[in-house]
């Protein structure tokens, strides 16, 4: 996504479930939702959505490091 002024942003999702989004434009409307606590979805979810004016890059980690070690 990019404004006509050349500013913009990016959303990204990695295969390990990591969520990342960032922007350097005045605002970004974003949201995410993912299941939590059960491999079968529809039970517990974590989520957020916002019209954000705080430019930067935000990362919501996916698989926890200790879980990675266990695999």
């Amino acid at each position, binding site marked *: 996504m*990019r*404004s006509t002024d050349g500013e913009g942003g990016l959303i990204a999702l990695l*295969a390990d479930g990591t969520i990342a989004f960032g922007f*350097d434009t005045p605002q970004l409307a974003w*949201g995410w939702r993912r299941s939590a606590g059960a491999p079968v979805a529809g039970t517990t979810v974590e989520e*957020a*959505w*916002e019209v954000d004016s705080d430019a930067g890059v935000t*990362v919501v980690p996916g698989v926890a490091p200790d879980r990675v070690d266990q695999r």
Partner: protein
Amino acid sequence: MERPDRYAPGMPVLLIHGGAGRIAPHRRDAYRHGLAAALDAGFAVLSGGGSAVDAVCAAVASMEDDTAAFNAGTGSALTASGTVECDAAVMDGAGRVGAVACVSNARHPVQLARRVLDASPHVLMVGSGAEALEPEPIDPKTLITPASHAAWRRWRAQATKPEGSATCGAVALDRDGRLAAATSTGGVLGQAPGRVGDAPIPGRAPGRTRASRSAAPVGAKRSSGARPPEAWRSRSSAATIPAAPSTTAWRRCGPQTAKGA
């Protein structure tokens, strides 16, 4: 020991955006409402065991139907001629792409892009050729809302060049670990008819990295002024870092691998 508050393989994820740029304060609640509705639409697909491609299309179609907030589908920004011309694209994790540009007869341009992906040997189709694939063509005037027409009248009275821009998009990871992304936009208010932006261009708007399992810029904390919303501050472990440098790490590439260009 299980960590029920953390993501694990097999748990679906949906990430969406409803546009970047200047969003008027009095419209922010409409954006928030539309974002929640899009998350509901897309995550319902994932929760039912649907594919990532189906989920991103559902989420983006929800935003295309939203007439109060997003610049896509119904309520899109109008061209200099006062018409609607929509662009959209869908990409799966294997790099297969379907995209359309300058289409005016589709209620859901993202679903038309999906038809290009699934039912054509092509990647990007434009104008009348793309519109011919629409199974349920609509009157283009139905995509114009009172608000989008009023914005166009104001632009025509005052502006001398195209202005504003916003694209809707979604990325999803389904239960089987498949990734997909989709984008949709009405373009720029006052754009010349026939103008195509970057939203439907593979590798520009929808894209993927070859090192997606390891390229995440994770771990640093935002240096100052961090304001994570209450919703995730209490429920997840978001990490934030300063703007700019890390975005360059997400090098995108989009060459077709499963379909010929």
